[in-house]
Every structure is written in C-alpha cells, then in structure tokens.
C-alpha cells in the first residue's frame, strides 16, 4: 500500500468567471494530520469540496487511496468521512437517530451499526446524550455528533472543513483532543481546512494557500523556521502618531494587527531595548516572539492574512459563515 493517501496534480477550478484554484499539486501522506491554511477566498474550501466529490473536477487529476476521483467517485466516497463547516446533522432528530440515518445511507448492516454507534458515543462522551434532540445541544456537542457521524463507517480519510468554527476555546480544545486521538489510535488520515493559526499549528503538515495557489508547505515548525529574525509586537498609547516614528527607528514597515503594531526585526531583544529607551513612556506593552505562521504568510505572499477579504476576493459560497 502506498504511503500517499491523497495526491492532486495540476488541479484547477473556476466558478463562472472567478478562478478559485490554479494548478494545485499536493501529496497527503497516509495517517498524517494535514492542514490547508489560507484566508477566505484562498481556494482551500474549493479544494476540500473537490476531495469530498461535491464539485466536478474541471482540470487536473486527484487520487484518493488509490482511486481516481474522475473514474470512481463512489469508491472514494466510501473511504471518506466528511465534516462540513455548516453542520450536516438534522437538528430535529436525536443524536442516535442522526447516526442511524447516516449509517443506513452508508449501507452499514444493522448489527454493525448498533455496535458502532455505541462505540462512538462512548468515544466522544455522548452516551448520556443519545436521546437528546441535536438542535438543543451546544455547538461543541453538535460538532462531536457531526464528527461521530463522519467516523461511523470507519473511513480511511477524515475531511474537515473549518472544524472549529463557532466553538468556544474549551470546546475547541476538546474537539482537537478527539481528532488527535482518532488519528493516533486508528491511523486515520485527517485533512482539514482552516483560517485559524492556532488550529494550523496543531497539524503535522501544512499547505499555505493564497489566491487559489499553494504558496508554501511543510510542518508548522519548518515553515516558522524558514524565515529569519523575530517579531516585535507593540501596543502604544497612540499608534497613529508613533507608527512613523517606530518605523524610522527600526527601519522596517509596521503592520497593524488589531490594536498592535508588528515589526519583523533581525534581533528582537536589541530592537526592544532600542524602542524602550527611545519612546518607552508611550508604550503600553511590547512582546518579542519567533515568527508566527502569519509572518510566514506575509513573507511569501507580500500581504497580510486578512487583506484578501477586504479586497473582496471571496468566491461564491466560500465566505466565512
């Protein structure tokens, strides 16, 4: 059995006039936790939908677990567990009814289905919720039902589209623990799309996407190590006035991130000292850190992570919900 679980070659896709993907090549190793990171409109959700066989393949080729997506989508669907950004659970059905319905659609024999449902409810700590109506559950619990549903037929590949959307930090942590457990115990290949840096950092392998193309790839650590220097973030009393002054002092352009100004500097400690001695009285807080994935993105694309959205480069149906 090959070690590559998903391979895509020269995949392009467009919605009417808007190009969503251009010439994408990638390989997902079997059993890995693989992330597609990019801002809204970067094409990651289009790629996800192509993998999930929900969109027709327009150009290029995709192979999943040895089957060609164009020739045998049915074989691929059997190997996939898919969790969508907008939950595909029926909110009027109970937890068990949702799982039963899904299992029957996947053609699981009755005995296997009953056993598997019990196993998954146990695994996702949902046993005491089996008779709850899904619409009455919290967002975190609903996600777990969704995940259990996706894993019911023991898929080789689990596809997750923006899995943490709408979850509070505690629910997000729990959800991630469950994903890790599934991947490590069962060897399931997990492929997910995300626009959240913290989520991307949990992946073993990352693909950075921008404007329909892969701009960089590697493990989060390699990506972060690929750019030199440090990141200095500063919160000031009056960022407008001080911005120009700090820029000339550090000889780099500042980037506004929320209420902070971020600078890429060769030596963080020295820069911090320099800033504090010159205009320390106007600074509320300052932090030196090694470059984040956001810095990597900025380095390779030349623009910030959120800039795309402001330019309206969001494809149909791909806006964040």
């Amino acid at each position, binding site marked *: 059995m090959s070690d590559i679980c998903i391979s895509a070659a020269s995949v392009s896709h467009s919605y009417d006039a808007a190009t969503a993907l251009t010439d994408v090549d990638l390989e997902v190793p079997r059993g890995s936790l693989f992330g597609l990171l990019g801002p809204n409109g970067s094409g990651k959700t289009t790629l996800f939908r192509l993998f999930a066989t929900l969109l*027709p393949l327009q150009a290029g080729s995709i192979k999943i677990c040895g089957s060609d997506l164009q020739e045998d989508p049915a074989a691929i669907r059997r190997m996939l567990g898919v969790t969508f950004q907008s939950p595909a659970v029926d909110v*009027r059905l109970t937890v068990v009814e949702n799982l039963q319905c899904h299992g029957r659609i996947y*053609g699981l024999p009755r005995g296997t289905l009953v056993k598997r449902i019990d196993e998954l409810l146990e695994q996702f700590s949902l046993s005491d919720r089996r008779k709850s109506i899904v619409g009455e559950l919290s967002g975190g619990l609903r996600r777990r039902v969704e995940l259990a549903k996706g894993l019911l037929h023991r898929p080789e590949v689990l596809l997750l589209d923006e899995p943490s959307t709408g979850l509070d930090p505690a629910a997000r942590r729990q959800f991630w623990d469950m994903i890790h457990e599934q991947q490590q115990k069962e060897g399931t290949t997990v492929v997910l799309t995300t626009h959240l840096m913290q989520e991307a950092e949990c992946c073993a392998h990352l693909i950075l996407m921008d404007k329909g193309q892969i701009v960089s790839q590697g493990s989060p650590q390699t990506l972060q190590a690929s750019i030199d220097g440090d990141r200095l973030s500063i919160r000031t009393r009056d960022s407008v006035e001080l911005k120009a002054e700090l820029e000339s002092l550090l000889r780099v352009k500042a980037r506004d991130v929320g209420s902070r100004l971020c600078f890429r500097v060769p030596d963080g400690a020295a820069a911090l000292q320099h800033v504090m001695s010159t205009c320390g009285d106007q600074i509320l807080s300052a932090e030196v850190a090694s470059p984040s994935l956001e810095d990597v993105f900025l380095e390779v694309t030349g623009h910030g992570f959120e800039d795309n959205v402001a330019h309206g480069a969001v494809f*149909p149906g791909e806006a964040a919900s």
Partner: protein
Amino acid sequence: MNASSQHSSMWSGAWALAWRELIRFFRQRTRVIGAIGQPVIFWVLFGAGLGRSFQPPEWASGLSQPLTYQEYFFPGVAVLIVMFTAIFSTISIIEDRREGFLQGVLAAPVPRSVIVLGKVLGGTVLAVVQASIFLLVGPLLSYVGLSPGLQIALNPLPAILAALFLTLIAVELTGLGFLIAWPMNSTQGFHAIMSVFLMPMWLLSGAFFPGGGEDWLSWIIRLNPLTYGVAGLRRLLYSGTLPVTDSLPSMSACVGVTVGFSVVICLICVRLVSRPMTHNVT
C-alpha cells in the same frame, strides 16, 4: 461493491431518508394540523356555503340519490390533503440544503437518486396516511351534522383500491413538488409557485367544481394530469357505476395518465439530482 449490494444500499439509504421524513413530520405538530386541518375546514365550510348553488354534473344523474356538493367535493379534499403533504415534505429539500444536511447525503457512496426515492417514499407514506384518515373520518362528520350522509361504499376491496390509487397520486404530486423545490434556493420561491401553479392545478382538476361552461376551461381540465387523479378516486369511492363523460374519464385512462405522469416526473427528478450543482454545497 457489486451491483446487487449497491442496489440494496440504495434502498436502505432511501428508507433511511423516508424514515427521517416521518420522524420530522410527527415532531412538528403544526405540520399535521396544516396538512389535514385546512382541507377538512374547506370541506365543511365550502360544502355548507356552496351546497345550494351546486349543479351536479351530467354523469351524476345515474346515481341513486342526487349528488350533494360535499359528496362531489369529497375526493377533491383527499387529493388536496395529498397535495399539501407533498408540498410540505418537498419544501424541506430547500431547508435541508440550507441547513447543510443535504451535502452529507451528496458525499455518501449512494447514487443521488436515493434523495428522490427517499423524499417520494416519505412524502407518499405521509400523504396516504393522512388522506386515508380523512376518507375514513369524513363520512362520520355527517353524524354531528357537519356533512350530509355520503353515498360511499365502505367495503374492504374498494377501500384498498382507493388507498392504492391515492398512493399513485401521492407519488405523482411528491415528485412534482420535488421537481419544483430542487432548483430553488428559498422557500418563498416555492410558495410563489404553489399559489400560481399548484393550487390552480388542483382547482382545475374537477376537484372543486365540475368542468363545463367555457370551452377553454374544459380544455384545461382535460389536459390537467391531476384531473385523472381526482376522477379515478371519485370512481373508486362512489358506489355504483358512473358513465364516462368529458369531465369524468374512464378508470383505465385515470390509471394510465396518473402512472405515466408519475414515472415521467420521477425520471426527470432523478436526472435533475444527478447533475452536480454548485448551490448544493453551502
């Protein structure tokens, strides 16, 4: 997977979707009231209001007693219940798509025709159950003075035949509802089609008033496939043999047109769902 196991997973998928349809229906009490309550109110009120001005059609002269309006309207109300149920169950496709449930089915290893099969199966079961309840309970309303005594045969064989024929009408109307709902993005759009197309289709099927009068009206009634559904049910419900006239086609024509129309509608639905569409994914 071989052909036969694919076949069986298709049926188990369709049953799963139909079963879901039934659970959803019974969890929403208002839907039960809407689908059965309104037609019954129509039947009692229109029956009481229009009874005196009703002119029985020529085919009714052969009946042992004169035909009252409520009797005339009776099969039409059963078809209205079927139509309402079909509309309510197919309109949920739009919700399924919006809520995201549909994409889970589209990503499953079953042919997309299970979506049609599941919807039609679920809608049909609901429609037949409700219309049958009406057909059984309706005549009892005469005991409380809400309807006149009906000349209706309550023998097992005609009852079974009527239930079978209702099933055909239900398949036809659920299929039609599916065809309208599938390409739609909003339930408002469906309501518009319902008012300008589905309700007139029912009104002009001989369910509400007999044909005759204007020529163009008779032609519309004759070309309306639902006319054959209403007429077929009428033939099965009334005791005694009725003559074949312009507004009351023969039983074989009724069965033929209803079966033919159902098959064509369902085939179009299957073709429609098999085409990948961007708006299926949210």
